């Protein structure tokens, strides 16, 4: 029987190796044992390191902030230590955990962290605010809630978690702040109100203007953004040079932004996904069909939408497409402008925010809100609400909004008049637009059903049926109407 080469490794040399097979020469049993001991020792040492064996020894982000930022506010409507007015010693084990999505701006993230920490220090409670990248938020929150260990305060989808009975009614906080500093915008109420109560407190209004090129408007539209979609189409067709450049970076593929883009487009034609009651599906309407027909015209006749927009790569419709100058106009939040200011100042100077061209139902501004909700199962609900109340006070919001540098619009009307906005003329109309702005669920509240319509891409799928599968606008709308009704039927029987 032929012996496998490995068997020859049975030693006949003094050092325990088989010289006929050099591959084993360096891997002697002594060597292996030594390596094992070394690895075990390393493991023990590593386990003893603060970063590995225990809670990380390094301070949490923001913990090294300047003392000035954590001093108790003297001018706030509600001081951090509401009861005594003086900082207290932290009670061991008492902790309020806060998760929020990154804001694109490190100064803003830090301001949010510092505000909660300030409250915690004044109340003798550790307030740990953590920035979670947006893409990681949903799975993390889902895991934490399922495990019964959600953080106390989360920047999340209040409607969804209210439907799961996870979030606390925060109407009391709402009522205390709603009339301060010129009052909160109406759209804030719409965003967090269900069943007549508030389930979250907004801290930012994320506006979706049309981000566009000044030079194109100057050269091809006489310096004024086209007032209607028909004028927009004509200007666009003259300005673009496909396939290198396209005018209209609307998102039509299977990503959530498509819903925002298409929903706003439909609204300008008087179409609505649901009625004001938030339950009756009204997608199938003359307005929606006309909006679909106009999209088809833009895509097939004027060819002003990049063809790959149907596949939804970032390159066709979003920040990247605009930053690469592949498209002239996009329907997206002002994060684009923020990036340009830092990375492409020349294009930033040549960029402005516009209201959408009008359809038969006029022009529409779409916004979403960022809001904090208090989670019941986290415990310490009263303290969490105190922290949220402190965070939502005008004094704190003002500090945060100054740090934001235009990334979002403040929730208090008067803060739209802060001197900082004078330096940013690109935002001068935001306050007016938000007064009449709508949210993605249009007439109704942002219910879980409305979120499911977004997350299952019904609107982009309906558009794809028309533009990709050759269905007529009526057929595509009919298909979308059926799908939306199926979703709503599951929630409202």
């Amino acid at each position, binding site marked *: 029987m032929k012996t496998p080469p490995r068997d020859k490794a049975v030693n006949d040399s003094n050092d325990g190796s088989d010289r006929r097979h050099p*591959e084993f020469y360096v891997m002697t049993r002594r060597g292996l044992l030594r390596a094992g001991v070394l690895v075990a020792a390393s493991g023990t040492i590593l386990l003893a390191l603060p970063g590995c064996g225990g809670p990380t020894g390094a301070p949490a982000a923001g913990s090294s902030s300047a003392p000035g930022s954590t001093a108790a506010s003297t001018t706030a409507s509600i001081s951090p230590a509401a009861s005594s007015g003086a900082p207290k010693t932290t009670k061991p084990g008492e902790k309020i955990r806060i998760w929020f999505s990154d804001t694109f701006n490190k100064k803003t993230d830090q301001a949010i962290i510092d505000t909660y920490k300030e409250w915690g220090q004044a109340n003798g409670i550790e307030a740990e605010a953590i920035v979670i990248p947006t893409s990681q938020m949903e799975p993390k929150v889902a895991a934490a809630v399922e495990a019964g260990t959600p953080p106390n305060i989360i920047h999340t989808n209040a409607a969804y978690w209210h439907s799961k009975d996870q979030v606390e009614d925060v109407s009391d906080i709402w009522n205390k702040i709603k009339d301060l500093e010129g009052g909160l915008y109406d759209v804030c109420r719409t965003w967090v109100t269900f069943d007549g109560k508030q389930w979250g407190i907004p801290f930012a209004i994320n506006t979706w203007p049309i981000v566009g090129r000044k030079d194109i408007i100057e050269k091809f539209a006489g310096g004024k953004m086209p007032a209607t979609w028909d004028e927009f189409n004509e200007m666009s067709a003259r300005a673009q040079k496909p396939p290198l450049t396209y005018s209209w970076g609307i998102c039509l593929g299977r990503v959530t932004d498509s819903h925002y883009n298409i929903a706003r487009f439909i609204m300008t034609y008087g179409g609505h996904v649901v009625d004001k009651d938030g339950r009756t599906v009204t997608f199938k309407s003359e307005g929606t069909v006309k909006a679909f027909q106009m999209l088809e015209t833009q895509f097939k006749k004027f060819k002003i939408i990049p063809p790959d927009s149907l596949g939804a790569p970032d390159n066709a419709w979003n920040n990247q497409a605009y930053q690469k100058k592949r498209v002239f106009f996009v329907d997206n939040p002002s994060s684009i402008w923020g990036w340009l200011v830092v990375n492409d100042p020349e294009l930033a100077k040549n960029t402005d925010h516009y209201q959408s061209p009008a359809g038969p139902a006029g022009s529409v501004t779409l916004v979403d809100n960022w809001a904090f909700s208090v989670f019941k199962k986290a415990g310490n609900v009263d303290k969490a609400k105190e922290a949220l109340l402190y965070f939502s006070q005008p004094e704190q919001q003002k500090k945060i909004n100054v740090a934001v540098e235009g990334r979002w619009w403040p929730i208090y009307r008067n803060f739209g008049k802060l001197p900082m906005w004078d330096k940013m003329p690109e935002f001068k109309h935001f306050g007016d637009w938000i007064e009449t702005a709508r949210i993605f669920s249009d007439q109704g509240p942002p219910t879980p059903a409305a979120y499911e319509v977004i997350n299952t891409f019904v609107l982009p799928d309906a558009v794809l049926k028309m533009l990709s599968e050759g269905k007529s606008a009526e057929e595509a709308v009919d298909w979308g109407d059926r799908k939306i009704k199926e979703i709503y039927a599951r929630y409202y029987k």
Partner: protein
Amino acid sequence: MAAVVAQRSRDRRAPAWVRPVVYVALTLFVLWSLTPFYWMLVNAMRTDKEIYDYETPLYPAHLNFNHFKELTEGYFFGYMRNSGEVALLTTAFSITIGCIAAYAMTRLRFRGRDTLARSLVFSYLVPSALLFIPMFAIIFRLGLANRLSSLTLVYLTFTVPFCTWMLVGYFKTIPYELEDAAAVDGCSRLGTLFRITLPLSAPAIVVVALFSFTLSWNEFLYAMVFINDDHAKTVTVGLTSMVALDVFFWGRMMAGAFLVALPPVLIYLLAQRWVVQGLTGGAVKG
């Protein structure tokens, strides 16, 4: 005789066209493998504006190391250290437990041995997307949330079954007679394992070590869910933190991705001799 051998050698020689075809195929394969590295490096050395420029050449217009510098200003190398700690610990424990378990399954007779061996494969096949929520619940209750040791603990749940399963196949190829001879000479069971079996299994151990290391180094889902503290994040999660909403910091990400890819590549290069032997050994005899 020599003439016959030469004639056979000529007969066996491949046609003339084979060599160029092989070289072309190998060149394509090398390009296929190296292009991602090249592209990462090129974009890491471009400014953000150049990355977004419409007409961007396939090479950097000038060398710009700002993105690498940005990484040093952040906590990126802390993420690398965290990943290294987790990957090394997981590897060490996986090998230790895997070797002992595989040895028991190949050399000891006990009830349920075959079932246990089969269940190893099944436990390895359960996707982490199904497990991350229950795992998080367990980790939280153990008080390990936000600690790197939680990752090591969870990674072992899929590295140990695989390592054991692979080592079982390899251990079976080692003749029992060697161990019998050792026993006759007075070697204990553990002594046999450490003095006979493990040294002979070095290639397989290297392969499972590499597997454990790369799997732990690259893992994302558990690391994302279990760890919140920025200073305890692993590098895969740290990289995705460079996407803020829908804004991608491509230059920094590419610089980071290039650095992240280096350790596994270097380890593979250093250990490739054993890797090839271990993999082919397992393939033929496993």
